Each structure stands twice: as structure tokens, then as C-alpha cells.
């Protein structure tokens, strides 16, 4: 099998036979089970916590409160505003107040109910207006700046004022993107145990074992060397398992205090409150354009009420601005964003982090601009595409780009050009394009050390073992590492064994976020495999008495290119190399290039490469009920190089699926949004899989995937990301298709029947007025 052939994943069978072990499948002798007492108030001061009745309950071994874990943490070092258990205040319904370890989970839950907490209830802050209102209570009142604005980012590039003066048409509108949550099918679970030397091992469902490792050492006040984080199989994350979570910290502390293994899992309702999902976002977008389609200026403002803690919110506030113009050429650009604290579960990163919301606004807006200047929306996008080997106005280095090819291919496959404006009544077609990063140049903490590494060990049996800190959470990164290694060495991916995400055994990788793993860890694997290849080549060349540069590694053989008969098996090559070199073990690593930016402030957002996507959606709108059916999505994605096309297709299909969910159904919504403090204010409106609507097989349209390969000069064998970018264009493509179907502009998602009907009524009234 060669790179670029579709093959089963090297670790697929475990998942299909039930053998794959996830964190909650694990148990250790003497294991205790944990549970949380959570706040019933969205905003309150904790005056006292009485745990005596809980401690007295038969079967209870330990009760923790905030005073037991006094050290703050948070994934982003500049915004460490969390405690595992409330120390002074609770800031959302569901905020953790106490944790119990007991013989079984039912006893732990019963014990939680016996804990007496005295609260001083405070006025909650729920809305953008409240969060900006300086007379309202401040959630984090001990912050240096006593305000509910976590971060305001303002960036200006070029001369927007001049750009608007140069425009033929200027349009401004407001857009609302809803909050949504990940709903990985596996709920979070963590199992902790300490050895007699005071060293912790924690198995946990995480996407970012390395950042968790650092947080655990900090909060538990132990050296990092005494903490071992292991990620078993993880039932997906989509960004929802990127933060360090209280269940991980409390499992460790409960285990330390009881001297027994402790598992703390979350139930489904708790996961809805743990959240860290999509930021809801209000956006105003003003855009100037010339009649020839040149975009002359943009002014973009965003307000995101992001919940009770910062999580990745500082990054989100930058991403809003960084990803708004991409993938288009733009010289004059003003941007302001606000990430706000509110008394809701904290928002964080969800697939397409920080890019989904601005993409929604811009792609809907672009169709309006196209209509205003009488230009084909597909052509307008194609002519404005960023070009290879250029820089954007906000200092991003663009290398490989195949957006025009993506647009051409979805247009051809879908018949967009003939269909747009010409479909039968209430049927419509829409297009949108997007761009996403392949990993962040900068990790969340300042460091010039490699951001990814792979330790390769070639056994004399012929097996090549790869040890990597990467976290495969279903996206297929284990297979990616094996396939790239196999390609370098002329062996199959299945000849490689991957041991991943064990902080004691595997070299650091920063984690499965920002679509970084293929680009960063993939390059590290290629680096390591290249070192082994050089040593084997030297040993084989010595035996064949030829030049090492003449040798090919292919089909489990090492041979002279000029005379394939002259060669040895890969296994014999390993043996020759082990004799000549000693035991064969090599480390590869990847440090992103130091890409000088013209803008010092622009440290959040730049990536070594960017993926590009174009999508077309076809819909049917029922004017009686307002129900929108997405009939089909075509998605062309520039992933650089498809290492394993069937896996890339799966990432694209999954991304589009999640986009369809956000477009049509999903809303992470709470009672009492107006800030009127009723008893239910701040409660989740839909904290179960039944109530929070995610697409079933019946709600998912046919998805036609088109892989486009631009062969990035710095990607491993040219590869870029495929797991997030394809989601960005789905929602606006559907929105633009709804306009094509019935002439209504929807400025808020999801596109639910009530919104569609209201817009249809507004349109009917406007049409009537115009007819008079």
C-alpha cells in the first residue's frame, strides 16, 4: 500500500469488536467512585460548606471542597481563572462546589446531597449588554481589571476609511451565531492512582494530555516528573476535551487522600454543563466592494458572551479577527472583538474554533454583495481568493492554495452555475468558501522547544514502533503517523506500531487542537523515519558496494534504482544497520518555522499552512411549515495531500455533518436570557441528547466529497489539515441556498422553522408593499 491509497486504519479493529478500552471501561482493585455537588445558582458567593453529614455516610471515603484545592489554573496562562472546586464564588449553574469519593457512584451521589452549602445569591450576568454594563456585578471580582470583559481585541490593517471611500457599494448588517456544544458520545472520565513513591498516574479522556499534565502538577503542587497522564481510547472530543477539567483534578486529589484508585466520570447532563463549546456571537459586518468585485474594505465587530471562565476565550477573541477575511484578499480591515464573562457554562474551542462565526457572517454577506453588484457568487469568491506565496494584510503567510480549484470542482459537480436562480419554487442552491489553520505557530505557553516529536524504534523483527505524545481521539492520527513512516521506509502502515499519549513514555506533542497534528506530528514522524532510512541506506550501500543515494526503499525492499535485482529485504537492511550502527532508535521533531510577522500583536492565529474549502448546498424549503430540508452538500477540500483518502473523506463528512447540525438544529441555550433572575434562570434548556437536537441519520444529507491536493511545500508529503476546515462553509452555504430557494435572508442560525416562517412573512409584506 502506498501513500494516497485508501486503507483501513491500523487501529480500527479494536473499535469494531468492542475491545478498545476507554477511560470509563477501566477499573483497578479497590477503586472508589467520585461525584460532584454542583451549584444550583448561576451567581452566588459561597459562605460556608458543611460536609459532616456526607462524611458520616457509610461507604464515603473522602469529601473535598474548594479549600482543599486552593491553586488556580486555566489552560491559557494569561487567564488562569478556574478552581477545581469553588473557593469563594460559583459562577454558573453546575459549577463544582464539592467532590466525594465513595465505594460506588450511587453512594457518592447520595453523599453530595447531604452537603449543606450556604450561598449569598448574587445578581447574574447573562447578556452582552449586562456584561458590558459597568453597574452590574463582576464575575471575577479579584481580577486586576474589575470588569466582565475578559478580552477586547482591536486590530487595524491598511486604511479602511479610504477603502470605504473607494467602494461602489457598501453594505452593513448584524449577524447572530448561536452557542452549540460538542456532544462527544463518550462522557468525560478520569481514573487516578498514586504509587507509594507519591507519583500520580491518570488515565483520562482528553485531547490535550500535555496541557493537562502541566495543570495537574500546578494544582496538585507536585513536580511534573511525578505526574503521568495516559490517554486511552477517547470517544471523540471535537474540542470538548481540550481543557483540564475538575473531574481530572479531583480524581487525582481524592486518590491521593484516600490512597486508593478513584474514578470520576461525568454523566451526560454534566457534560452539557462542562461545555467549553462554541461561543455565541453577535457580529456587525460592514463591507465595501467595487463593481468589478474587488473588496475594498471591511469593518468587523464581534461580541461573544462566553460564560463563567476564560477557557480558550482569549484565543477565540483573536481568531474571530484572524479568520474573518480568509480566504479572500483584503487590504483594508478594521476589527474589534470582545470576549465577555457571563453566568453560563464556559465556552471554549469547538471544531472550527473562532472561525465558524465570522465565516457565517462574511459568507452570507458576500452573497448580498454579489447580488448588489450583479455578480455570480461563485465567481466573486474565486476572483478574490488569496494566492500562493503571498501575505495577508494581517500578517499571515500563505503558501499552498487550491481554493479556485475547490470552487470550480464543487460548481461543476453540483451544477451550481445552471441551477442558481433557476431551481423550482422553494428549492435553492448556495455556495460558500473557507480557510483554516494547520496548527498554531505558537503553543499556549511561551517556548522555543519542538511542538511535536516522535521517538522511533526499529526492532530486529522488522516492526517499527513509534512513540508519540499525540492524542488520537478518532481522527486517525495513529494511522497517519504509521502511514508516513511506512512511506519513508517502503513498508506498510501495518508494519508500524504506535504508542501514543503517555506522558512518561512518549515525547511531548502539544495536543489535538487547532488542526495541528498531521502537519506537526506528521513532520516529526517523517523526520524520525528519515534518520532510520539514512542509517539503513548506509549499511545496505556498504554491502552492495554502491552509493546510498542510489537506493530505493519500496515494497519491503532496499534496492538499487538502476538494478532492482541488487538489493536486500527491509528486514535484512535493519539487521545490517543494527550491526553497523547499534540499536536503531531515532527521534524526529517538528518546530514550526519562525515566520516573521509585521505585527507583533499577531501572535495568535498564524499557522505554517492553511487548508481551503468550497461547498455547495441544495435545500428545499416548505413554505407552509418553514421546515428546511438539506438535500445534498458538495464539499471540495484542499487538504494538501490525502495520506489516506478514506480517512480524509471521513473527516470531511464528519465536519459537514456537524455543520448541518449547527445550521439546522443545535442551540446551546439557557433559560432566562433577559437577565431576569427567576428560579430557572441560567438553567440549560436542553441538557440531554433527546432535547439538544443533533442530527440523526435521517437529518443528515447526502454528502459528496471532493479531495483537492495542493501539495503544501512544508507539509508532510504535502499534507495539510482536513478535520476542521470543512465545517466552516457548511452553515453559510445552507443559508445562501435558503435565499436562493425563497428570497429570505436569515441572519441568525440555526435556520429553524419559526425563523424561516417569520422571514417569509416579512418578505410577503415587503413584496405586497412594493406591488402597491
Amino acid at each position: 500500500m502506498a501513500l494516497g491509497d485508501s486503507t483501513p486504519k491500523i487501529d480500527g479493529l479494536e473499535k469494531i469488536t468492542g475491545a478498545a478500552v476507554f477511560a470509563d471501561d477501566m477499573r483497578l482493585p479497590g477503586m472508589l467512585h467520585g461525584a460532584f455537588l454542583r451549584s444550583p445558582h448561576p451567581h452566588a458567593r459561597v459562605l460556608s460548606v458543611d460536609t459532616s453529614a456526607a462524611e458520616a455516610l457509610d461507604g464515603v471515603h473522602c469529601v473535598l471542597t474548594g479549600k482543599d484545592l486552593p491553586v488556580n489554573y486555566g489552560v491559557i496562562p494569561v487567564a488562569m481563572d478556574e478552581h477545581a472546586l469553588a473557593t469563594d464564588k460559583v459562577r454558573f449553574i453546575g459549577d463544582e462546589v464539592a467532590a466525594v469519593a465513595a465505594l460506588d457512584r450511587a453512594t457518592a451521589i447520595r453523599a453530595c446531597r447531604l452537603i449543606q452549602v450556604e450561598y449569598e445569591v448574587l445578581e447574574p450576568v447573562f447578556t452582552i449588554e449586562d456584561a458590558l454594563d459597568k453597574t452590574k456585578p463582576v464575575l471575577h471580582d479579584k481580577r486586576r481589571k474589575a470588569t466582565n470583559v475578559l478580552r477586547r481585541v482591536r486590530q487595524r490593517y491598511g486604511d479602511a476609511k479610504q477603502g470605504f471611500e473607494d467602494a461602489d457599494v457598501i453594505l452593513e448588517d448584524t449577524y447572530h451565531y448561536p452557542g452549540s456544544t460538542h456532544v462527544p458520545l463518550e462522557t468525560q472520565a478520569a481514573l487516578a492512582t498514586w504509587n507509594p513513591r507519591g507519583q500520580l498516574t491518570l488515565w483520562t479522556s482528553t485531547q490535550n494530555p500535555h496541557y493537562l499534565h502541566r495543570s495537574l502538577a500546578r494544582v496538585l503542587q507536585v513536580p511534573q516528573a511525578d505526574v503521568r497522564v495516559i490517554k486511552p481510547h477517547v470517544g471523540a472530543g471535537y474540542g470538548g476535551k481540550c481543557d483540564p477539567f475538575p473531574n481530572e483534578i479531583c480524581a487525582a486529589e481524592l486518590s491521593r487522600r484516600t490512597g486508593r484508585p478513584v474514578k470520576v466520570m461525568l454523566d451526560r447532563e454534566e457534560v452539557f454543563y462542562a461545555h467549553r463549546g462554541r461561543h455565541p456571537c453577535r457580529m456587525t459586518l460592514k463591507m465595501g466592494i467595487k463593481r468589478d468585485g474587488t473588496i475594498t474594505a471591511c469593518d468587523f465587530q464581534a461580541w461573544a458572551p462566553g460564560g463563567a471562565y476564560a477557557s480558550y476565550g482569549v484565543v477565540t477573541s483573536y481568531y474571530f479577527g484572524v479568520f474573518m477575511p480568509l480566504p479572500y484578499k483584503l487590504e483594508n480591515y478594521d476589527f474589534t472583538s470582545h470576549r465577555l464573562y457571563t453566568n453560563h457554562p464556559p465556552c471554549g474551542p469547538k471544531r472550527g474554533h473562532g472561525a465558524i462565526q465570522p465565516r457565517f457572517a462574511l459568507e452570507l454577506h458576500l452573497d448580498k454583495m454579489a447580488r448588489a453588484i450583479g455578480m455570480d457568487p461563485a465567481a466573486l469568491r474565486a476572483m478574490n481568493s488569496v494566492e500562493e506565496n503571498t501575505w495577508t494584510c494581517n500578517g499571515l503567510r500563505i503558501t499552498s492554495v487550491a481554493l479556485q480549484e475547490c470552487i470550480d470542482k464543487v460548481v461543476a459537480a453540483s451544477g451550481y452555475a445552471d441551477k442558481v436562480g433557476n431551481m423550482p419554487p422553494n428549492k435553492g442552491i448556495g455556495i460558500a468558501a473557507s480557510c483554516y489553520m494547520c496548527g498554531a505557530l505558537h503553543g499556549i505557553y511561551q517556548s522555543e522547544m519542538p511542538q511535536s516529536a516522535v521517538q522511533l524504534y526499529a526492532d530486529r523483527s522488522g516492526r517499527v514502533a513509534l512513540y508519540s505524545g499525540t492524542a488520537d481521539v478518532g481522527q486517525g492520527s495513529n494511522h497517519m503517523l504509521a502511514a508516513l513512516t511506512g512511506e519513508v521506509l517502503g513498508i506498510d502502515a501495518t508494519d508500524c506500531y504506535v504508542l501514543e499519549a503517555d506522558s512518561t513514555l512518549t515525547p511531548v506533542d502539544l495536543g489535538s487542537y487547532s488542526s495541528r497534528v498531521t502537519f506537526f506530528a506528521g513532520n516529526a514522524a517523517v523526520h524520525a523515519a528519515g534518520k532510520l532510512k539514512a542509517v539503513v541506506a548506509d549499511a545496505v550501500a556498504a554491502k552492495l558496494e554502491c552509493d546510498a543515494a542510489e537506493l530505493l526503499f519500496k515494497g519491503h525492499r532496499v534496492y538499487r534504482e538502476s538494478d532492482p535485482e541488487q538489493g536486500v529485504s527491509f528486514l535484512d537492511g535493519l539487521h545490517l544497520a543494527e550491526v553497523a550502527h547499534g540499536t536503531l532508535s531515532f527521534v524526529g521533531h517538528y518546530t514550526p518555522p519562525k515566520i516573521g510577522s509585521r505585527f507583533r500583536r499577531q501572535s495568535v492565529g498564524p499557522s505554517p499552512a492553511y487548508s481551503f474549502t468550497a461547498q455547495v448546498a441544495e435545500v428545499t424549503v416548505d413554505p407552509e411549515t418553514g421546515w428546511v430540508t438539506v438535500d445534498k452538500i458538495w464539499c471540495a477540500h484542499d487538504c494538501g495531500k490525502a495520506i489516506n483518502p478514506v480517512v480524509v473523506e471521513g473527516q470531511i463528512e464528519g465536519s459537514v455533518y456537524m455543520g448541518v447540525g449547527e445550521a439546522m438544529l443545535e442551540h446551546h441555550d439557557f433559560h432566562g436570557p433577559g437577565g431576569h433572575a427567576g428560579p430557572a434562570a441560567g438553567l440549560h434548556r436542553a441538557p440531554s441528547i433527546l432535547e439538544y437536537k443533533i442530527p440523526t441519520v435521517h437529518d443528515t444529507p447526502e454528502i459528496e466529497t471532493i479531495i483537492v491536493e495542493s501539495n503544501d511545500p512544508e507539509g508532510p508529503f504535502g499534507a495539510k489539515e482536513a478535520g476542521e476546515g470543512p465545517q466552516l462553509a457548511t452553515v453559510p452555504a445552507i443559508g445562501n441556498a435558503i435565499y436562493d430557494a425563497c428570497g429570505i435572508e436569515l441572519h441568525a442560525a440555526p435556520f429553524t422553522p419559526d425563523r424561516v416562517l417569520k422571514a417569509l412573512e416579512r418578505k410577503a409584506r415587503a413584496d405586497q408593499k412594493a406591488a402597491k
Partner: protein
Amino acid sequence: MKEHVLTLSINGDTHRVLAPSNRSLLDLLRIDLGLTGSKHGCDVGDCGACTVMVDGLPRLSCITLAADAEGRQVQTIEGVATGGRLHPIQIAFDEHVAAQCGYCTPGIVVALKSLFERVPDPSDTAIRDTLGSNICRCTGYTKILSAAAQARDVLNGRV
């Protein structure tokens, strides 16, 4: 809670388990017997990850009392591959890479096996209707549907 000795047939093996009356079949499988292939995604019957077969019919084991499975044949994902041989559904899932994170996969494989045993040559629509009870959050169902269709065709000797 009153405890009872339950006698259950799981994947052809007879197990006697002392369990409280409210023990769910899923908890009995996972906690008492260590058969952790069946997953809990919600514990209230919303997601389908816990699907097992009881007398050949798909059942959400998280909302089935273990006591109700007494005297019936229970089959879980661990019983789908027999004698070390993968079932055609499993081979198809592997070839189509229909499992990403794999958390929903055991329930889906069991649901399909039940369908194929009851309806030997189901239509694409019948396959979709069966999968309507199982949430997959990773794949967009595309690869699952193509794998299911392949398995059906293999089982009917067409491939």
C-alpha cells in the same frame, strides 16, 4: 435495595450474578461481568451506544432491567465475532473506516446484526431506519451506511 441472584445467558455463557433489583442490563454487563464493549453515552436511552440483542431484538441495555433479561439470550458486541472470526459487518466497517472514535460503533454493529438476522436482505431505507436509533457524532453516517450496504451484500452472496 433488595438483591437477587440473576441467571443470564450472555453470548452463550450462563452467568449467575447477585445484583440489586434496579440493576440495568448495561451496568450488569459492564460492572458485574466486565463486558465493557457496550458503551454508555447517556444512560437514558437517547443515543444507542449501549445497544445489545435480547432474543435477537435490539435493546437499549441502559434502560433495560437486568432482571428482564433472565431466561433470554443476550448478545453483546463481544459475541459478534465468533471463534476468532470477524463478522462481515465488522469486516465492512474496517474496510470503509466506518469507526472514527469508535464509541457508537459497538451499538451500531449489534443493531445491524439484529436487522440482518431478522430481515436477511433489507433495503437501504430499512438500514437507515435501523440506524435512526443510534447517534454517531463523528462520521456523518456516510461510511456507516456504505459499510452496512456492503455487509448486507456480502451476507446475501452478492459480493
